[in-house]
């Protein structure tokens, strides 16, 4: 049984990578306009951030209501790097991710000592603080009007156009998925799942709970800042809105809707939250009510999220037909 599970997990991981890769290749053939391609880019970017948050929420069982703050730091780093430090935008992105990781490392230590609602409130405060800094430091960030992000130039080639960004963000998503799956199946991943089930039990078994929580917090912050940086580079202009509290809530919704602890789920969750409003423009007055209804129905009938629920249903049917 356990051997079968491990085999399935390894194959399953490869399978989800191959599936996502195939989807990336096939989607452009189905798209008729660069508007649809833009939606895909936005989905890939938010999915990256959601996958990072899922590592924290779905595997380590720690909630964060301030992830948009990290998203915002990534976004502003690609704008501030060139304007303040004279870095090239392409270099600013990794620099921003590193800065964000460092910040998460410093702040994570005290914050992660908190549990449950207290942790939620602390991360919420962190996110809001970052939002306030971005909107109030007018001299540095341009305030509520935001600031321009210079285009990436690689050896004289200007990176622009939605199609180019489709491939860049698509590959970034693929790398994120690969990293996340590797982490989940590493000893660290096992330790995280132990923490998720019971912190006491995990520490009795010799898992350094505080250290692993911090590691995953830093990793998920890096995912969010990478996503934010890519979105800023693609859009060419950013406003403090990228780090708004509602974006944090959106990210949490993506994770929960798609399925906690499911990497593919985060992608599905992001796709739903980004694409659905585009279909609901015809009934604008009821848009929010409709979105809410979908969420309620999902939570009632698919309690563990869309992807885990569906795959469980498929598995149990297969099990039935076997026996």
């Amino acid at each position, binding site marked *: 049984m356990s051997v079968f599970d491990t085999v399935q997990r390894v194959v399953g991981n490869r399978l989800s990578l191959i599936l996502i890769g195939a989807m990336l290749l096939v989607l452009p053939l189905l798209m008729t306009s660069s508007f649809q391609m833009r939606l895909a880019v936005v989905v890939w970017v938010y999915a990256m951030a959601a996958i990072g948050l899922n590592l924290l929420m779905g595997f380590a069982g720690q909630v964060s209501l301030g992830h948009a703050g990290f998203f915002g730091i990534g976004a502003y780093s690609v704008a501030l790097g060139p304007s303040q430090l004279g870095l090239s935008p392409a270099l600013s992105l990794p620099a921003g991710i590193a800065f964000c990781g460092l910040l998460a490392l410093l702040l994570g230590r005290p914050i992660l000592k908190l549990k449950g609602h207290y942790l939620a409130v602390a991360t919420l405060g962190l996110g809001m603080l970052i939002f306030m800094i971005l909107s109030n430091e007018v001299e540095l960030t341009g305030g*509520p009007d935001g600031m321009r992000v210079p285009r990436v130039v690689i050896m004289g080639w200007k990176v622009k156009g939605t199609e180019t960004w489709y491939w860049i963000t698509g590959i970034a998503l693929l790398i994120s998925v690969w990293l996340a799956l590797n982490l989940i199946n590493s000893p660290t991943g096992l330790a995280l799942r132990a923490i998720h089930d019971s912190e006491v039990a995990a520490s009795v078994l010799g898992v350094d709970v505080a250290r692993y929580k911090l590691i995953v917090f830093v990793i998920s912050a890096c995912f969010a800042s990478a996503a934010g940086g890519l979105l800023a580079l693609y859009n*060419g202009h950013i406003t403090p809105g*990228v780090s708004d509290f509602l974006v944090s809530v959106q990210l949490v919704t993506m994770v929960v809707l798609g399925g906690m602890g499911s990497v*593919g789920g985060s992608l599905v969750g992001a796709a739903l939250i980004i694409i659905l409003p585009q279909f609901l423009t015809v009934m604008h007055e009821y848009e929010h009510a409709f979105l809410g209804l979908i969420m309620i129905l999902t939570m009632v009938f698919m309690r563990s999220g869309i992807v885990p629920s569906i795959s469980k249903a498929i598995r149990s049917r297969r099990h039935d037909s076997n026996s």
Partner: protein
Amino acid sequence: MKKVVKLAALGAALTIAGGVQAADPVRIGAVVSQTGPAAFLGEPAAITLKHYVEKLNEDGGLLGRPVELVLYDDASDANTARTYATRLVEDDEVSAVIGTSTTGATLAMISVFEDAEVPLVSLAAGIQIIEPVNPYVFKTPHTDRMVCERVMIEFSERSFDQVALMTGTGGVGKSVRKECTEQAEKRGIEIIADETFNPKDVDMSPQLTKIKNTPGVDAVFVGGFGQPLAVVSRNYKQLGIEIPQYHSHGSASKVYVEMSDGGAENARVTAPLLVIADQLSEDNPLRPRAVEYTKAFRDLTGEDVSTFGGYAYDALLLISDAIKRADSDDPQDVRDALEATKDLPGVTGMFNMSAEDHLGIDHSSLYMVTVKDSEWVLE
């Protein structure tokens, strides 16, 4: 993942169907912030656009074809605004776009219109939108710089050489403070007190006491947005300050006067045209549209006319006028005609566009009014 594919395919099918169905009407796009923190800007704009597109169609549409308004709500978010901008030019294939309500989101949208070569008429105040001039980007609201110019001109005329600034820490207040400091410097007016207030402050006495105790202040200029402006005037009266009180356009609303408990009496306010439309002389070319819009807006909403709705009125007016003159709804022709707009009376001012000026109105479209017995008096 399959869901994504299905959704995308469905999206493709829908847009193809949409494209065939709507080959006939003249299509005008709009992105406004109907929800979110900027809803106070976007809601009157949406009401105005819907009403006047309906009216255009009652009068026979444009170029003998019906007009279709494709309106999206960006929820006050720059990224969403950019997505809808892409949708408007790529999928809806509109001739021109109106929007959006905030400066940041407009700036995020601009490159979409530049690449697609479709004209955009923004409803946001920021001067960065039209400076430097982008061939495809226009806007209708006057800038904070024009407000400051107007006030500083009056300060020069009355030889107020030493003034105090009292500005909010919100977006509008910050912009007013920056522009007015520059304009004051330009005219040799010295700012000898510079105080700020937060958007939720309920008492401004400390700041005002400081200004009161600064010797030689000739006038106080108050800039910002919303409720705190009334608080300033209320405290002004309570402290018995005699120095002339000037306000930016943020105070040009009846709510400000009512909430100030009489503190607004004798205050000079930089008011947009709509506020004093009924006081303009009968032969003023700006009068008819402004009076008609004031009445129409009250009939529609039961509320006093909104300057923010007026910006949308003017954007639609500019675009429909340009389509008529160009005798075409091709985006490039509409852009050229927009730039050639001459002597078009709108409800914000008289529009005169040129290749160098994509706003087309100047500070003469702002009126200095005095509050007398809780009413606006143009003098």
